[in-house]
């Protein structure tokens, strides 16, 4: 998942709840469909969504490059282990599901996701659920993707500078430590912004 891409397309302006349900239907629907041609059709639909969203070409290239790499790897493994048909089906499912999730995050502000969740969860308040906490949780989860990729990039760079770019330990240990440290710091920052206080 990548971050929000500012825009004024119909998809950017569509209600968050509608987009969210649409994303869920597509992402789960492709796992119900068993014919590669049908799943391929869904992929084309998602592709059309990118065109409607008028996302920058450079951005689309970056997303499709990473997605194609993973899909190709999965395709090769499935073909080798199962069959050609299974390879098409599984990799197209992945492309459709990740593609639509990415389209959602690219056209929806996290702030809108947080507000929608808070609104949707409001009736649960009587059962002791705190909608603001649920919204914050969703927001932080989406934000964590870019934060963790930033930390991973910095750790990888540091390992490379020390000639340890192929060492799993040189990546995993500092990545874990920095992630935990970030979680501590973020908790403190949230407390400083009054998020620890009961509304």
């Amino acid at each position, binding site marked *: 998942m990548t*971050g*929000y891409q*500012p825009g004024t397309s119909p998809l950017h302006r569509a209600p968050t709840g509608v987009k969210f349900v649409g994303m869920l239907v597509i992402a789960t629907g492709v796992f119900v469909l068993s014919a590669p041609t049908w799943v391929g059709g869904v992929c084309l639909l998602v592709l059309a969504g990118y065109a409607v969203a008028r996302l920058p070409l450079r951005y689309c290239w970056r997303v499709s490059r990473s997605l194609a790499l993973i899909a190709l790897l999965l395709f090769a493994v499935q073909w080798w282990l199962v069959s050609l048909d299974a390879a098409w089906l599984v990799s197209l499912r992945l492309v459709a599901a990740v593609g639509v999730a990415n389209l959602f995050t690219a056209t929806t*502000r*996290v*702030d809108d996701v*947080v*507000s929608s969740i808070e609104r949707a969860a409001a009736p649960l308040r009587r059962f002791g659920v705190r909608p*603001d906490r649920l919204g914050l949780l969703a*927001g*932080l989860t*989406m*934000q964590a993707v*870019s*934060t963790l990729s*930033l930390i991973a990039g910095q750790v990888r760079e540091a390992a490379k500078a020390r000639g340890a770019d192929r060492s799993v330990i040189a990546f995993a240990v500092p990545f874990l430590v920095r992630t935990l440290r*970030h979680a501590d*710091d*973020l908790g*403190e*920052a*949230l*407390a*400083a*912004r*009054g998020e*620890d*206080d*009961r*509304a």
Partner: protein
Amino acid sequence: MIEFDGLGHSYGDRRVLSGVTLRLPERRVAFVGANGSGKSTLARTINGLVHPTEGRALVDGLDPARDGRAVRRRVGFVFSNPDSQIVMPTAGEDVAFSLRRTTLSKKERAARAAELLAEFGLDGYADHPAHYLSGGQKQLLALCAMLVTEPDVLVCDEPTTLLDLRNKRQFVHRLEALRQQVVLVTHDLDLLERFDRVIVLDEGHVVADDRPEPALRHYRKLVG
């Protein structure tokens, strides 16, 4: 007004602050001291991020350990690493996030955030991914995220540590222009010329408390 009344703090067996008693009515106050001198811990007691194990801190007569919510409405806190303070993906959303507990509508929150970002030279960055701003811009964003709630006091814990000289000066220039009382924890002694009061801490004790020049002279002598 901020007050410390016989304040002490220990992390387990390690004592980091002892018997700090101060009243801070000045507009610009700085804490300086070597690493581990207790200055960051002392700053954190002001808005209740750390609850002292002895004595108390007071903000306008309120104890942050008991009235945390009320105190945090009055006191904003800026940390040294701006990356750790960014909660939302874009600059505009991050500033607006501070207002989410207010009665303002979403549109008003976004407008207020955009207004403040523009005031701090970050106009046009509202939709920019916050983590990909420059170090100086990120620290200004952290400052905006605190100032948008219009606190009376701003506590900054080594906010210039990760900034280059130009960004450091720009940041301090912004601090100087604020109407709020500013409590700054720093190692950058040359930034304190225009402060009203500088308090030097050493091993958890206040060892100097004066105008910048004599206080910093004392500090330089202390660290050799």
